[in-house]
């Protein structure tokens, strides 16, 4: 199924507002989705016999830079029966307050593999996933402060009283 057909399928099912835009400049096209409907979109793409995107290759949390103040998540889906790939993107503005993390819906109910991927995105970029069963830090220690892959991250000088060189 081409990108056009997938777009048509999604807009017919969920209305026009579900797709915010698309990126076709590079080698891989991407669909920009409304953040709130990501679960339904993923579920539909996975279950619909015409698309059947049953494999979540990768999930990436992204900080779009200090000026943009935008956080996003990129999903790379793959369909095993049709051998196709699809990129979905969602993003939200956020003012980098550590008490108000950017928050998206978790898709662990659709793809279980999103569990660890979302934990990683939370751990490194500070993106909160609503409805995740166990959103703890995964790579860094539980008491780590800050989110290292944010563009404004300052390296810590001390960790538990130990000087970091």
């Amino acid at each position, binding site marked *: 199924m081409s990108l056009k057909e997938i777009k048509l399928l999604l807009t017919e099912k969920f209305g026009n507002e579900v797709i915010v835009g698309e990126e076709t*400049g590079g080698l891989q096209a991407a669909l920009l989705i409304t953040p709130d409907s990501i679960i339904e979109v993923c579920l539909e793409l996975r279950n619909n016999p015409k698309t059947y995107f049953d494999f979540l290759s990768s999930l990436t949390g992204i900080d779009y830079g200090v000026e943009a103040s935008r956080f996003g998540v990129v999903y790379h889906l793959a369909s095993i029966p049709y051998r196709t790939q699809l990129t979905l993107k969602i993003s939200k503005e956020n003012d980098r307050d550590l008490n108000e993390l950017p928050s998206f819906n978790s898709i662990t109910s659709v793809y279980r593999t999103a569990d660890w991927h979302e934990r990683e995105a939370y751990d490194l970029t500070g993106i909160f996933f609503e409805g995740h069963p166990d959103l703890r830090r995964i790579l860094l220690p539980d008491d780590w402060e800050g989110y290292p892959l944010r563009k404004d991250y300052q390296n810590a000088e001390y960790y538990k009283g130990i000087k970091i060189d």
Partner: protein
Amino acid sequence: MNITDTKYNAALNNYNNKIASAATEDMVLNMGPQHPSTHGVLRLELITDGEIVKEVIPHIGYLHRCFEKHAESLTYQQTIPFTDRLDYLASMNNSHAFVMGVERMLGIDKDIPKRVEYIRVLVCELNRIASHLIAIGTYGIDIGAFTPFLWCFRDREHIMGMLEWASGSRMLYNYIWIGGLFYDLPVGFEERCREFVDYFKPKMDELNRLLTDNQVFINRTANIGVLPLDVAINYGCSGPMLRGSGLKWDLRRIDNYSVYPELEFDIPVGKGEMGSVGDCWDRYKVRVDEIDQSLRMIEQCLDRLQNELKRTTDFDPRAKLPRKTIPKAQDYYVRCEGAKGELGFYFMADGKSEIPTRVKARAPSFNNLSVLPEIAKGVMIADLIAIVGSIDFVLGEVDR
């Protein structure tokens, strides 16, 4: 920087409460991080009822070396040595994937000389054999077979020696560069490699007689840790893990990248010969069969490299190296079949600098390991060792 709001700590508190309350009735057992059967620094927290594992909570991150953070401050070319350190048992495959992605973004992937591509595939397949030999050898030692481990390491040493001859280092090669190679193969490499293939084939038969068909080994692995296909797909498992569950899914065939479409090889899948499809023995057997297929590919590569793509004095593997590695502004996700499964890199290029805005590594071991709590529920502790070994993860890649 104190986060007073507890809404982001809810999961951590839940976890702490669970461990605290489990300690009164069940036993909480820590396996690792410094435990040989966890293949690196993995800590498994087991909630056990006697010998039965009620729940497994993996703790990873002990080997986190900030690959993605480093990649944001280094140029594409400078990042290649860092990719070597992801799956350090199959470094060539990592740099091949990374380089392929950057070349496609630059639009030079069609200009790479055929000889360079064949050398890349040759060293990748050699490295895949080395990685699978470790998987097989350490799997044997996990469940009590000591000899196969020594045999596998003996044969792997030949591959290490050859790759050292080509690249100058034993494990972390930095051999595949964007647009070419570090050097051409040393004179005599092809002949030496052919000798190795002839030497190694009978050794595989020996290994099969010693381990694969060993009744003790079969009893320990057949029908243990059965991973159904739908669970495997939903958990994002790939590579021998997915093929062990019976699906013919190999990105070398699906995506037909590099020169793989010109090579003949089969895709071994788990058939449940000794137990049920997707058990530990199937995953092990897929790796054994893949070694044979890799040997087939190596022979075909050598045929080409010694005949129509023979070395010439004026051949320069660095001829196509780009002067400036500045891709157009775009996002690109490249995937390829690493030794452990689908290895992917996601690049965000801004079109202005040689330094990517963001690089994400999709590590196959990370996803393969994430299925462990699901398939290890309710097994005996001794079987857990067999399951962990059959996943064949590398912590360098899990933690990145």
